[in-house]
């Protein structure tokens, strides 16, 4: 399932770049994140708890940031699996100056399988957008609070 969008953040590109590379910001803003443990440079062990439709599940996996071109671009990959199935996502993030702030463009592809796919696939688009919306709203507050 492909999703994309843009968000305006009230901070310069450099600040936003720092924030989206800050484990603390990721920890605070990723919806459903229960645990984020750095296991290497830009690689984390993550535990997520997310409900899709009637299926609530805990997914253990990894979160990695690659293809970094500071301060404008990176790729974030997440995969996790658990009793309710598996999820796998990849997102590209691009930052551009926009007035005093930053325009953040993102495009992602989420794949789910197992129980969550069979029962929740039709809801996934809406839920994905909602979760990503929450993520950026939180980020917005985070950088807003930081300036």
């Amino acid at each position, binding site marked *: 399932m492909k999703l994309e969008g843009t968000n305006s953040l009230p901070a310069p590109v450099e600040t936003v770049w720092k924030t989206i590379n800050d484990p603390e910001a990721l920890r605070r803003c990723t919806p459903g994140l229960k645990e984020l443990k750095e296991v290497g440079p830009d690689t984390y062990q993550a535990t997520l708890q997310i409900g899709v439709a009637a299926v609530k599940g805990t997914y253990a996996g990894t979160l990695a940031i690659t293809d970094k071109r500071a301060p404008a671009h990176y790729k974030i990959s997440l995969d996790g*699996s658990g009793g309710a199935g598996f999820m796998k996502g990849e997102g590209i993030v691009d930052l551009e100056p926009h007035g005093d702030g930053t325009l953040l463009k993102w495009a992602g592809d989420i794949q789910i399988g197992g*129980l969550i*796919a*069979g029962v929740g*696939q039709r809801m996934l688009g809406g839920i994905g957008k909602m979760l990503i919306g929450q993520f950026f709203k939180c980020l917005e507050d985070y950088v807003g609070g930081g300036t």
Partner: protein
Amino acid sequence: MSPHVGARITRNEDPALLRGRGLFVDDVRLPGMVCAAVLRSPHAHARINRIDARRALAVPGVLAVFTHADLGELGGPLPKLIPHPALTYHKTQEPLASTVARFVGEPVAFVVAEDRYLAEDALDLIAVDYTPLPVVESLQEAAVPGAPLVHADMPNNVCAHYTQRVGDVERSFARAAHRFRERLVIDRGTSSPLETRGVVASWQPQTRQLDIWDSTQAPIPIRNGLAAMFHLPQAGVRVVAPDVGGGFGCKVMMFYPEEILVPMAALRLARPVKWIEDRREHFVATNQEREQIHEAEIAVDDDGLILGVRTTFLYDAGAYCPYGIIVPIVAGTTLPGPYRIAHYHCEFRAIFTNKTPVSPYRGAGRPHGVFVMERLLDRAAGELGLDRAEIRRRNLIQPNEFPYDVGVIYQDNAPLQYDSGDYPRCLSRAADMIDYARWGARQQANRAAGRYLGLGIACYVEGTGIGPYEGSRVNVEPSGKVFVATGVGTQGQGHMTVFAQIVADVLGVDPRDVSVRTGDTTAFGWGTGTFASRAGVVAGTAVSLAAEAVREKTRLVAASLLEARPDEIELEHGRAFVRGAPARSLLLGEVAAASNPLRFTMPRDWEGPGLEATRYFAPPRGTFSNGVHACIVEVDPETGMLRVRRYVVVHDCGRVLNPLILDGQIHGGVAQGLGGAVWEKLVYDAQGQPLATTFMDYLLPTSEEVPPLEVGHEETPTPLNPLGVKGAGEAGVIPVAAAVAQAVEDALQPFGVHITEMPLSPNRVRQLVAEARRSL
């Protein structure tokens, strides 16, 4: 005494079933019984790197977690059923996947715990490390060279390539005045029996006896297979298919992994083990059917007479093909139907995809063949300006042409030869019943009122009653009650009644005094299973032959007691009496008691004690039923919603054994046919994830959608068995998609909608109307 065969009598099995006193597998509860649950692959294609079950095993109450590594010699691929020379890659799955899982739902681990809750919770604690592999979901894409491979040791995904030819198709097409080509797509469905699969196994070490209760259509082959796998004598394995809540083909598969895993666990743990499939599992773990893509072409002359037909089609086998290529063979051999087709070319490739395996589901390829043939005729009629019923009438095989050789080899490996029938009569009766002659005026009147109604009329021939054989034992006890045993199990078809009717007529007793036992290998140990609309034909005939032998024995014994000649003895109302002297009579039970003397001598010509006989019937080839369905549907072009206003079935399955039961078969079949034609669709995403795994997403027709059916029975007996009967189990489902497609096309004719696919969901109908409007 009026004959019971042919009478509309209620079913012997119903009083118990309606009172909730049946015995289904889940009703089997044994002391010390434990429960199993299956961990299934969430990936459509993935390498299994590692399975760690330590956390699951640490939970109190979890008795065992089995993975492939624990299976030993049982871990090899499951048996390959029904090989065929054209089937070059007969791939079957392992009971638990060892290194690669190839469809969502493939078993990976098997947990046994004190109860089902613990077993299911334990599944969540098993960590499996997968590496996802490229997935091929679409049948069309899987057939393209370079597609991801479902089985890495194959050069492509083609497991079989088979061609049958009759006459000179190229020449017939070259000389034809008209040729019409269609690409026709039939999508995937599932048979959704009310009762999902289930297995209970119990091992008694003291007697070395393995007892299995299995919701299967084939208990005897299951017993034979299990005996071989577990190195037990066949007599030491009892398989019972108790009351079975529907099978429709998906339960004639042998073996499903659980049918081996449950007995294995029972043997290793020395505890009775139960596994009941839940509905969501059923949507991925029980075989499915129907997906085919046909490139078909018809050649006709100016009068609409068929000169030749050819089809080249793809058949989706799913990830494995345990059941071989029966379904596409049946599709290709059903396609010619009731029509004279001198030149026919049928070619298919069976293709692996990363989806649940496919095996026969009620109709088993027949609905596909009929859909293709009828769509081609509709196209030809439309192009030539011929009436739809008329083009069919002109091409029908005539009653004086039987036996009629179609020219191809059928699924039973015998030449396809129609034995009897009156095809024109069925067509004209169906046309009369639906008031075809006045349809044009009715349709116009409705259109003027803004309502879009369409009529469909479709013909079919159904291969039934194939071999190899079935058998039956009939015996009369001193109580006067008659006991019948046969290997052909019942999944709701009414065997307890129909076989009782047959015996009742032969022995002159009341059908309620005849008790029929099926599906228990200790009651009768020879047989193949319930499939291909064959129980009434093959087992019914065996029952009849056994009852006749018992009648002769009864005459022999009664004659000696009544001091008459055997040919003077008549059987009626539960008594044996001397013809012309009804006072000289004995109760049947008295004859039975006398046939088993305690002392003195026994006449040599009795050949043994008791009023008992076992007989087998092995038909030389299948017998062919036929029929015509006609329906009127109303379509709302704005919403795509479809309502079936009328549904007519004219059906000829030879001599009718019980019209009430036959009606039931037809009704159920039509309901399933309508489901497959309109609502039921197993949607998969591009990654092979099934998206319709609940009845919220997979829509079964309910009494709201299925209209009252109008059924007319014709009876053209077959010469192939003494009862004159043909099979009827699949008739209801076979031409429904074809009739509905034609009716929808007829209803939406003002928009120029052309139907080339099944099912036709409201969404899809709406899209088709929108597309047609754009191109107008």
